[in-house]
């Protein structure tokens, strides 16, 4: 029997009077690997921001049956933002310093790091195969390595839900494959629930078990196979447009 991790009911978000999301309702179960797709401006990032508590919203979002209006879920959520293209090559921080900063969400003032925090950071780096990069400067790492460092930062406080916001946009195909394989392993072996925001429906189909398609409102929510066969989606994309799905081995 599936256990609900996140329940979203009638979620609406407005930015200065402009509707960004309208009446979205969906559930995310523990252990799900969900792809979140949609065109630019479809509300993908707004949905993520609402879950992270960064934008005011109407409706309800509950994390493990507790309303996000009553408690902060960031301690239970790992977040990997879009590739930090602005990352300064000369930023004076080692990979270890960046990864361990992931525990700050769970600390109260005055924050200080313990030996256990560094242990957790090394464990997260070890899981992602980047332990040997611990003392390297973040700006001197390759794009794929940097992204894995940021993923380790998102994982260091052992979150139950991992939100990846277009994580592979700036990566080459090989780094992209490595990254997705790592996330898949985290989902299957470590039981981390994953919400992957991506334009890349192919990658979602390859790795995710379910798919959300947004266009300011919920257009589709189901398995990828259902998405491929959905007459609703065929209607949505319009006559003459086809969804071609093929199974990756």
């Amino acid at each position: 029997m599936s256990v609900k991790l996140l329940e979203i009911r009638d979620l609406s978000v407005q930015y200065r009077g402009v509707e960004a999301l309208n009446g979205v309702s969906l559930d995310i179960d523990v252990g799900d690997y969900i792809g979140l797709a949609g065109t630019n401006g479809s509300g993908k990032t707004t949905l993520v921001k609402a879950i992270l508590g960064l934008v005011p919203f109407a409706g309800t979002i509950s994390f493990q049956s507790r309303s996000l209006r009553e408690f902060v879920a960031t301690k239970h959520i790992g977040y990997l933002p879009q590739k930090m293209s602005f990352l300064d090559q000369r930023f004076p921080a080692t990979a270890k310093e960046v990864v361990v900063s992931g525990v700050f969400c769970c600390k109260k003032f005055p924050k200080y790091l313990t030996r256990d925090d560094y242990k957790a950071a090394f464990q997260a780096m070890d899981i992602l195969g980047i332990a040997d990069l611990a003392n390297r400067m973040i700006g001197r790492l390759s794009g794929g390595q940097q992204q894995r460092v940021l993923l380790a930062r998102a994982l260091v406080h052992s979150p139950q839900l991992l939100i990846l916001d277009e994580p592979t946009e700036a990566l080459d195909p090989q780094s992209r494959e490595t990254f997705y394989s790592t996330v898949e392993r985290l989902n299957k072996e470590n039981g981390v629930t994953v919400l992957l925001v991506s334009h890349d429906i192919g990658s979602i189909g390859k790795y995710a078990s379910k798919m959300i398609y947004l266009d300011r409102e919920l257009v589709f929510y189901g398995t990828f196979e259902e998405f491929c066969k959905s007459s609703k989606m065929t209607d949505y994309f319009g006559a003459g447009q086809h969804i071609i799905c093929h199974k990756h081995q």
Partner: protein
Amino acid sequence: MALPKDVMIEIFTEIQESLQYAFVQRAIIAGCFMALGCSFLGVFLVLRRFSLIGDGLAHVSFATVAVALLLDAQPIVVSIPLVALASLVVLHLSENARVHGDAAIGLVSSFGIALGVIIASTAGGFNVDLFSYLFGNILSVSSLEVWLTIGISLLVVLVTTLFYHDLFSITFDEDYAQVSGIKVKVVNRILILLASLIVVLGIKIVGTMLVSSLIILPAISALQIMRSFKATMALAGVFAVASVIVGIFTSYVLNYPSGATIVMVNFGFFVGSFVLDRFIR
């Protein structure tokens, strides 16, 4: 090329003699604490592309000093609240208006200079007092200013230590810091208010024109060679304090203006770090 032994002895004797003067002792104490505070803040400000905040606020302080001189009030008493207010305006503009951080600094900076010039001309032109604030004179700091500098610098060190992890997180990735539950706006305001305090005190030491160099130069010198954040802050502090000590003694021995000499020593550290980095890599 080493200096002849007798010249070296003469220089050391002169330095030793200088230390007997109370004004030199005050200059070194105030300068070192000021340098420490500036360099700690500098690392965060430089990395957050707010390097010129010192310059902008110094220009505002030029106007506030002019106001103080016009009202025959203590410049520091008038400057601290007004420059703090200006720093919050810069932050508010960059956060809420369609004005980038550097443009917001430029806006407040030019306003400060223009206001200062108008007030000075209304009061009968530039006088010696106002001119001394343009270029500073560390050798003329009063005991009160020394204590204020120690207090503010220790406050900077304390706050940057207590908020170190939050400041690091915000400096590296502001969006992620916000997601992590860090009160980004509050921490930003604390940082910028500390910068305004240190700038007001700094104009007495190196002057309006050069105060931002105490914030920028030690930080970018340390950034050339350091690979971790804490080490960068520590080295920036060392560079800043060393530049004040070497600068004051050099200016005393060679009879150069102290503020400008401190800046030149800082510049020397930057060149040295830049060259060293090329060897390390």
